[in-house]
């Protein structure tokens, strides 16, 4: 652009696009399913990097600086996910496709694990996707965090049975089974809107408008 500090990224961009296209073409010879997952993964990564979405900031900033913009973006994300999840589960049920979801009941170990993850998240300056984006951008510090993330996930995954046995789990509740899909969706959207309003009120109060 206006000064020489900008080095053109064009040859890198063309190179990567070429590499990805070839890789996807190769992969599609082996499995269409894998190719679709790969495309979805790459698109998600691209959007995440460009959107600067930061889960850490969404949870930390309301307390630290009184800003809730990202918190509200996160609530919007939850709302969209809820609708998408409902659509997928509902259409799967219509066509009798069994869904295997990695959803586990809540327990004391969930809270402890969440706290541990939260502390690590703030120290590392990014959640799991945030760290992956940073590594892609070329930050070295996040490689260390990624190592910790990988070790932690493996250890957690291996020992989760033990923890849930030791602490006990709450009985799992699936709201649509009790209330039906439509009331559940309405309830959830109302709850999210209430949180949204609360977040907006919080920022106004904190910044003294």
């Amino acid at each position, binding site marked *: 652009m206006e000064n020489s500090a900008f080095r053109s990224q064009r040859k890198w961009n063309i190179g990567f696009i070429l590499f990805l296209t070839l890789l996807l073409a190769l992969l599609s010879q082996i499995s269409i399913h894998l190719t679709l997952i790969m495309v979805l993964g790459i698109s998600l990564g691209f959007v995440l990097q460009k959107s600067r979405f930061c889960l850490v900031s969404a949870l930390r900033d309301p307390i*630290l600086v009184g*800003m809730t*913009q990202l918190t509200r973006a996160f609530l919007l994300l939850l709302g969209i996910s809820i609708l998408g999840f409902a659509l997928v589960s509902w259409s799967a049920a219509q066509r009798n496709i069994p869904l295997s979801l990695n959803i586990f009941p809540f327990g004391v170990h969930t809270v402890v694990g969440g706290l541990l993850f939260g502390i690590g998240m703030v120290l590392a*300056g*990014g959640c799991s996707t945030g760290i992956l984006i940073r590594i892609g*951008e070329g930050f070295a510090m996040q490689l260390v965090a990624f190592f910790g993330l990988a070790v932690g996930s493996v250890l957690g995954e291996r020992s989760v049975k033990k923890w849930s046995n030791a602490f006990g789990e709450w009985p799992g509740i699936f709201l649509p089974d009790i209330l039906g899909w439509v009331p559940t969706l309405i309830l959830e959207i109302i709850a999210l809107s209430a949180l949204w309003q609360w977040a907006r009120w919080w920022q106004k109060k904190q910044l003294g408008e």
Partner: protein
Amino acid sequence: MTRFAIDIWGEMCPIPLIKAKKKLLSMQCGDILVLETEHSCTSRGIVVWAKANRYTIEEKEVANGIWHLELTKTHE
């Protein structure tokens, strides 16, 4: 109209903003705070924060992955 600068190079995300907030307290109205970061989220976060606080801020990417910010303390 004094120009101040603080070093936030390489700092993890909440720290630049906390440092900037602290520095702003000691500045007079009309003073400018100059910040430079290599972290896009830090830059974005400070810009959003400054706008929400009704400070004037200018953001410029001066080189690949380096952002230069100038924040004017327009009010107390």
